[in-house]
C-alpha cells in the first residue's frame, strides 16, 4: 500500500491569533494541510506550536481567525473526526490498558475495534496492565491507540516521541507509517528534526507565533543551504580565520571550527595545504537541525543566533 497525498486541503487556518494579556502566542497563522499528508509543525519551546494545535483541536478558543475542516468552520462534531495525542496526559487511575481504550471508544459514534487497535499499536504485551505502570514507549503507544479509537481521519501528535529512547522512537515512527497507509492525515509537532525529516511531507517552522518557513524538508534545505559543513575539532594547535580559507565561511564553535563551503574539493585541499590535521574531521551535508537553528536562532552558538535572527 502506498501513501497517497492528495491535493485537497483537509484543514486550513486563516489569520489565527491567540493573545494572552501580555503575550501573543500565535500571531496570524495561515496553514494549509493536504489530505493524507504528514504535516510537521516545528519550532523552539514557546514558539506557539502547542497553542496552535490546541486551538485547532477545539480545546483552546482562538482570540480571532478561522479554522476550516474540509472547507467548513469546525464545530462540536469535529471532535468525532479527529484523534489527539497530547504531549503529557495522565490516564484515569487504576484502569488497565484495555479498559482505558474501551472507556474512550464509548465516547465516539464511530470506532476501530479494540483488537485492531491492539495489533496496530502493538499493545498485546501489556493489554491487561495497569495504565500507570507502563514504560515510556508503551505509554506513548497506548496514547496513540487512544488517538485512534474513533478511527479518525485527522490525527494530531504533539511531540509524540519526546523522552523516548532511540529504539522506541524508531518503533513509533514505524507505527506512524502504518497509520498513514490507512489514509489518515497527520499533524505532528516535534523537537527532533530527524523525526520531522523521516515522517513529514511538508513542514512549517514556527517562531514567536509566526511561520517563518514552509515547504517539503528537501526544498527547504535546498532553499537555505548550499554546500556542506566541515567540522574540525580544536586541539591540534592550529587556528583558522575567515581569511585563510578563501571561498568558505569559518565559524568558531567553541570546541571546534566549522567551515561551510559550496566547493568541498577546493576547501579540503586548502586545509591540507595549511597543514591542518584532518584525523578527526567530520564532513556532512546540512540538515533540518541546521536549518532550524539558522531560522529560529535558538542554538548554542551566539554568533549564529545573532546573524540568523531576523529580529536582531
Amino acid at each position, binding site marked *: 500500500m502506498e501513501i497517497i497525498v492528495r491535493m485537497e486541503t483537509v484543514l486550513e487556518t486563516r489569520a489565527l491569533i491567540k493573545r494572552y494579556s501580555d503575550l501573543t502566542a500565535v500571531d496570524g497563522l495561515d496553514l494549509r494541510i493536504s489530505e493524507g499528508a504528514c504535516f510537521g509543525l516545528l519550532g523552539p519551546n514557546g514558539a506557539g506550536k502547542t497553542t496552535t494545535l490546541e486551538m485547532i483541536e477545539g*480545546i483552546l478558543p482562538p482570540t480571532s481567525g478561522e479554522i476550516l475542516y474540509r472547507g467548513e468552520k469546525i464545530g462540536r462534531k469535529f*471532535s468525532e473526526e479527529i484523534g*489527539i495525542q497530547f504531549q503529557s*496526559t495522565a490516564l*484515569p*487511575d487504576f484502569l488497565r490498558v484495555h479498559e482505558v481504550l474501551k*472507556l474512550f471508544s464509548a465516547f465516539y459514534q464511530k470506532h476501530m475495534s479494540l483488537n485492531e487497535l491492539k495489533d496496530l499499536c502493538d499493545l498485546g504485551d501489556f493489554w491487561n496492565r495497569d495504565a500507570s505502570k507502563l514504560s515510556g514507549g508503551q505509554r506513548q503507544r497506548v496514547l496513540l491507540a487512544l488517538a485512534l479509537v474513533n478511527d479518525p481521519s485527522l490525527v494530531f501528535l504533539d511531540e509524540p516521541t519526546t523522552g523516548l529512547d532511540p529504539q522506541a522512537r524508531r518503533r513509533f515512527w514505524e507505527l506512524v507509517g502504518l497509520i498513514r497507509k490507512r489514509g489518515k492525515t497527520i499533524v505532528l509537532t516535534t523537537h527532533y528534526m530527524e523525526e520531522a525529516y523521516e515522517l513529514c511531507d511538508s513542514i512549517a517552522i514556527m517562531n514567536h507565533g509566526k511561520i517563518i518557513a514552509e515547504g517539503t524538508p528537501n526544498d527547504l534545505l535546498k532553499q537555505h543551504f548550499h554546500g556542506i559543513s566541515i567540522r574540525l575539532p580544536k586541539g591540534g594547535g592550529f587556528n583558522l580565520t575567515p581569511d585563510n580559507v578563501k571561498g568558505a565561511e569559518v565559524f568558531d564553535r567553541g570546541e571546534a571550527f566549522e567551515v561551510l563551503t559550496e566547493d568541498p574539493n577546493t576547501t579540503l585541499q586548502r586545509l591540507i595545504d595549511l597543514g591542518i590535521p584532518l584525523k578527526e574531521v567530520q564532513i556532512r551535508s546540512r540538515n533540518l537541525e541546521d536549518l532550524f537553528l539558522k531560522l529560529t536562532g535558538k542554538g548554542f552558538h551566539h554568533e549564529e543566533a545573532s546573524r540568523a535572527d531576523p529580529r536582531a
Partner: protein
Amino acid sequence: MKKLLALIHARNLEFYRDRSALVWTLLFPFIVLAGFTYGYSGKKEALLNIRASGPGLTESSLIKKFRSTPGMDFQITTDEPAAIKKLSRYETDLVLKADESGKKFTYSLNPDSDRGKLAERLLQAAVEADSNPRAELVMVEVTGHKIRYADWLLPGLLAMNIMFGSMFGVGYVIVRYRKNGVLKRLRATPLSAFQFLLAQVVSRMTLMVATATLVVGGAMVMIGFHPANGVAGTIIDLLLFLAVSSAAMISVGLVVAAQISSEEVADGVLNLMTWPMIFLSGIWFSLDGASPWVIRISRMMPLTHVVKGLRAILIDGAHFSDLMPEVGILLVITAVLVTIGSALFKWR
C-alpha cells in the same frame, strides 16, 4: 447513555481499586463508633440537663435552690412532649412539671439513666430541705425502646462518612484529573461537561448509598443497633434519604472542584468546609443548649439536615415523606450548587 455507563463503570472500578479510600470509607465509622461505645462517658458541657415547665415554677423557693446546683443546666421549656422525647434519647436527664400552686411537681426520668437518678436524688433532697408545707413529688418513668449514645451517634457518623466520601471523592478527584491532564484529554472527545459531571455524581452517589447501608448493617451486627422501624420498614426510606443526602454533599464538592487545579488547595478548601460541619451539625451532641448564633450557623450547613433526617429515620422511625423540610432543603442545595458548579466548571 452508553458514554455515561462506560464512565460510571470506569469510575466505580477506580474507586474499588483505590484500596486506601475503600478501606477508609468502610472502617472509619466503625473505629469511631467503637471508640464512643466503650470510651465515651457523656456530654462534657453540663453535668445534668434539666428541662422544666409549668406555671408555679418561678415562684418556688425549692426550685430556686435546686436549679442553683453547680454543673446543672436548668432550662424552662414550653414544649413538654419534645423534652420527654429527649429524655428517652439521653439528651436531657430529667423533665420537671410544676402545677399552679407551685407545691406539686411531676417529674419524668429515664430509668436507664444514672444521671437521671442523680437528678432525682437532688430534687428529693431539695424538697426535703424545703420549709413546710412540704411539696408533693410524683415520678413518671419514661418508657420506649432504649437508645444508647452509640445508637444515637450512628446516624451522625453515617452523615459524616457521606460528607467526606462525597466532597473529597468528587471534589478532590476532579481537581486531580484537571491537574494531571485527564480532563484535558476528555475535553478533546465528544463528551460534554454535563455528561462528565453527571457520571461523577451518579457513580459517587451509588457508592455512598451502598457504603452507608453496609455501615448500618455492620452496626446491627457489631453493636446491636436496631432501626426504629426494623430493617424492612426502614430500608426504602433510608436509601432514598441517603441518595438525597449524598447528592447534596457531592454538589458541594462539585463547586469546590469547578475551577481549582491544585490538589493542595482543594484539600485545604475541603477541610475548611468539612471540619466546621463536623462540630456544628450535631453529629456528636445535640445542639439544643447551644447559643442562637451556633444554631443559626448550623442550619446553614447541609450536613445538619443530613444528620437530622438520618436520625429521624433510624432512631425515631420517621418515613422519607415525613422529612419534607430536610429533603426539600437538601434538594434545593443540590439544584443550586450543581447549577453553579456546572456554570463555573473548567476543563483545564
